[in-house]
């Protein structure tokens, strides 16, 4: 650790990556331009469900600038793999081009390659495809009904899996003994991620070396390479390089392997020329993996003292037409185990039907399972408060798990053992910051004047950095969940860090450099972070599940410890002192009691490479690689409060105040963490009030553009009041938990509960998300009748 100088860990340092972004010099995939570049455009199904009959590309092939047109019969590659298996799961084959049938609107049917993007699109319009339309089903629950259209002959009732967690019998007993039971059907609507940068790829096959380079908008370039090389393209991993340069947001949607990049790789190999494809936003809406889409029945049991005794959950999870890369994981192990929340909840039973429908595949989207669990818990808590005629904050407080920070985890009845927690201070702080008591008084007065203010309070838990790999494997993972971090010290003492994590907005180039510079007491300018290139970096797992700091950061710190350990041996040798007599501070080793006898970091690094005078038997050089596999998830938590004003005559909601108190463990860069919290809140508020990916019953996507899908805008949101409590995680060496998804998890129920609290004088107890002005107005109008 740096001592004597200012610690970099915990400091709000401006981001090092920003200068290139604010001057327009970022390098995103669509900015890549190669000699001989060709451009791809896709022909996509306009039908949700149809038999594919004839594809006629004659006119397209004659179109100016066209180089080739490909469809299913041309492309000989494997199907897109699913990377998570559940017991008795049925996994449909997912060809890269629709084969035999199309199963959702936007499914790729053919691809044109031309010498310009405009020529490719012109020709794509000229491909004529005959379809025999079939009845379609877009709703996860309806897909299970008798007589529903069947997507796959080999998957009866469209059911991919049935999964349960918890103790059914014990939960039934708890409900029988309950003094109060609240229940609520809950729709957690489909969301469409909409990272601002559309997905894109450039595939370039070298006929000279046989190497394939793929620039792709990926959150996990090694996972992309592994899945594509081994399962889809059937080429040695050594012949494939995946580069994910600057990536413009992901939120989950850029984890997965998609059709387009696979086909572009195949086409580049076939044509011997680079092939570029960049989605237009319409294509993003149709073919990026969507999020959420649960239809749930949930009930909560309380005893007569207001303590929660049981939770029962039945969910139909709409998985879309095929299983995306990690689709089965999201509504199972990232959902059920979260259902204890921050509460002592002794009896839980959750069952999930994973359903195939004629819609775009559904997979992880910011929060991924955890927002769905938290939303239903928090809705039920609020319903209970109303039923029990108690303050919603107090109902929560009474049921909180007591503080456990001594290293002994808290075991829930649904598999998770929480690492550390102290939940009440966060709730207290959030209530204090929001002026909760005063707002309640203001609410009373306002109601008498026919103004409807509402307050929502959420206490939540989040699970970050899924781990360890052995457990993930036993639960069906097709991947490990460790991370790599390689630290290469150069002869001058400057350091290049190669991380398997990937930054697509998270600021790794800053936070990881802070970690390293802090550990070594050297200037940050001496540390460079490299990510997003399989040719430079040891195999790594990438960024999702708020794992970069807790898993990726820990891997780097462990490697720093290793090079420091070797450096100490060299320093001791040079100083003719014993290792244990050396102190390390301010970037140098010095002999205890004789501070003028010292060797600076750079001197030791140089000697490691000169190797003229290093301990006998020691190898020259100074670098280390760590594959860090944590022993557990980390569990951030917190409390959020929203205050809203609902105009009951128009249904319009105005967010008056938003308070977030999060505990994400130790914080490396508070500015960056605050930024993530802000963005997470906005996305969660989007789900609460505006966003909804709507398919009509026949499977037509009604929200296929930014004109129809309401993303949060600057003038709809307030500034946020944020604060933190700090409960370090005992799981990893740096005590961090994770901050990428907390805002999204907590803000959705907070805002929904605030709106419903505002409407409580009308007896409105529930409105399905999103709580649009129209729905609110209708609910109030119906209640007034």
């Amino acid at each position, binding site marked *: 650790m740096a001592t004597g100088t200012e610690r970099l860990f915990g400091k709000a340092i401006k981001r090092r990556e920003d200068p290139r972004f*604010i001057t327009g010099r970022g390098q995103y995939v669509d900015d890549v331009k190669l000699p001989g570049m060709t451009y791809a455009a896709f022909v996509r199904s306009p039908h949700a469900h149809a038999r594919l009959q004839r594809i006629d590309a004659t006119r397209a092939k004659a179109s100016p600038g066209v180089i080739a047109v490909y469809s299913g019969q041309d492309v000989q590659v494997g199907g897109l793999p699913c990377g998570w298996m559940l017991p008795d799961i049925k996994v449909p084959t997912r060809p890269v081009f629709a084969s035999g049938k199309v199963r959702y609107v936007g499914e790729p049917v053919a691809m044109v390659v031309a010498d310009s993007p405009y020529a490719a699109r012109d020709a794509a319009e000229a491909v004529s495809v005959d379809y025999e339309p079939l009845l379609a089903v877009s709703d996860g629950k309806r897909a299970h009904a008798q007589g529903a259209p069947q997507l796959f002959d080999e998957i009866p009732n469209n059911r991919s899996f049935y999964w349960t967690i918890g103790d059914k019998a014990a939960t039934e007993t708890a409900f029988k003994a309950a003094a109060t039971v609240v229940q609520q059907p809950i729709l957690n609507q489909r969301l469409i991620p909409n*990272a601002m940068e*559309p997905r894109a790829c450039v595939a370039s096959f070298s006929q000279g070396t046989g190497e394939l380079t793929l620039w792709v908008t990926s959150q996990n370039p090694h996972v992309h390479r592994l899945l594509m090389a081994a399962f889809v393209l059937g080429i040695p991993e050594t012949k494939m390089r995946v580069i994910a340069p600057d990536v413009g947001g992901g939120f989950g949607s850029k984890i997965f392997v998609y059709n387009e990049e696979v086909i572009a790789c195949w086409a580049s190999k076939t044509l011997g020329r680079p092939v570029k494809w960049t989605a237009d936003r319409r294509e993003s809406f149709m073919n990026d993996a969507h999020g959420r889409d649960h239809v749930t029945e949930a009930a909560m049991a309380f005893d007569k003292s207001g303590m929660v005794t049981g939770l029962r959950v039945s969910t139909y999870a709409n998985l879309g037409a095929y299983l995306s890369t990690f689709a089965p994981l999201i509504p199972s192990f990232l959902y059920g185990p979260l259902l204890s929340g921050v509460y002592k909840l002794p009896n839980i039973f959750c069952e999930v039907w994973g359903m195939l429908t004629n819609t775009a595949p559904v997979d992880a989207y910011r929060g991924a399972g955890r927002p769905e669990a938290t939303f239903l818990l928090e809705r039920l808590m609020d319903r209970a408060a109303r039923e029990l005629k108690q303050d919603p904050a107090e109902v929560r407080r009474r049921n909180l798990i007591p503080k456990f920070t001594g290293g002994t985890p808290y075991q829930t009845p649904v598999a998770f053992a929480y690492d550390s927690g102290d939940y009440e201070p966060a709730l207290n702080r959030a209530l204090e910051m929001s002026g909760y008591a005063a707002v309640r008084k203001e609410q009373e007065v306002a109601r008498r004047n026919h103004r409807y203010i509402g307050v929502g309070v959420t206490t939540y838990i989040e699970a970050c950095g899924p781990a360890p790999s052995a457990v993930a494997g036993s639960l069906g993972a097709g991947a490990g969940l460790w991370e790599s971090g390689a630290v290469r010290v150069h002869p001058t003492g400057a350091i290049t860090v190669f991380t398997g994590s990937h930054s697509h907005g998270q600021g790794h180039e800053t936070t990881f450099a802070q970690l390293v510079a802090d550990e070594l007491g050297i200037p940050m300018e001496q540390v460079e972070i490299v990510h997003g290139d399989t040719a430079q970096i040891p195999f790594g797992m990438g960024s999702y599940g708020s794992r970069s700091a807790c898993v990726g950061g820990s891997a780097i710190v462990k490697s720093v410890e290793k090079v420091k350990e070797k450096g100490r041996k060299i320093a001791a040798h040079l100083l003719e002192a014993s290792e244990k007599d050396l102190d390390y501070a301010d970037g140098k080793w010095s002999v205890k009691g004789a501070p003028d006898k010292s060797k600076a970091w750079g001197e030791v690094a140089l000697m490691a490479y000169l190797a003229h005078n290093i301990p006998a038997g020691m190898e020259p050089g100074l670098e280390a690689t760590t594959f860090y596999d944590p022993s557990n998830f980390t569990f951030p938590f917190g409390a959020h409060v929203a205050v809203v004003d609902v105009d009951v005559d128009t249904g319009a909601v105005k967010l008056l105040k938003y308070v977030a108190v999060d505990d994400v463990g130790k914080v490396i860069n508070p500015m960056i963490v605050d*930024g993530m919290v802000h*963005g997470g809140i906005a996305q969660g508020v989007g789900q609460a009030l505006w966003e909804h990916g709507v398919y009509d019953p026949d499977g037509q996507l009604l929200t296929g553009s*930014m004109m129809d899908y309401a*993303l949060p805008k*600057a003038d709809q*949101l307030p500034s*946020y009041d944020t604060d933190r409590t700090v409960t370090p995680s005992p799981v990893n060496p740096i005590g961090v938990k994770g901050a990428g998804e907390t805002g999204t998890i907590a803000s959705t129920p907070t805002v929904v509960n605030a709106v419903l609290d505002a409407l409580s004088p009308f007896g409105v107890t529930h409105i399905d998300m999103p709580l649009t002005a129209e729905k609110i107005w209708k609910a109030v109008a119906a209640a007034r009748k």
Partner: protein
Amino acid sequence: MKLPVTVTINGQTHKHEVEPRLLLVHYIRETIGLTGTHVGCDTSQCGACTILMNGQAVKACNVFAVQADGANITTIEGLAKNGDLHPIQQGFWEKHGLQCGFCTPGMIMASYQLLERYPNPSEEQIRHQLEGNLCRCTGYHNIVKAIQWAAEHPAQK
């Protein structure tokens, strides 16, 4: 059929023959090679392609290159002068007004016009003026702060 266009971009004059349907944003990105201006949607909602055309902030995906004939254009690459960041750029850096950076060029160019209209904008004015620019990362909080910072540190004329 191609039509001639003459456009001055960041002080440099370019002459090309272009298809009449070529969008200005594609002209800037593909023909000129200035890739700082981004394309985030096809329906003019997102604002990632915002540039200044004859002093007005416009969405370059909504303008044909031929409509820019004779125009004077500033893109994100032309905002810093002699290596000095414009105060808006500096504000975005100081206040962490960006994360993934993709919306940032458009946000900055829209903010440029915002500050010309309202040199001392209220938070409400900032939020209203940015209604045509979407950001998925920041929740807008720090973008507002960045513009406030820029308003407090105006460029030396």
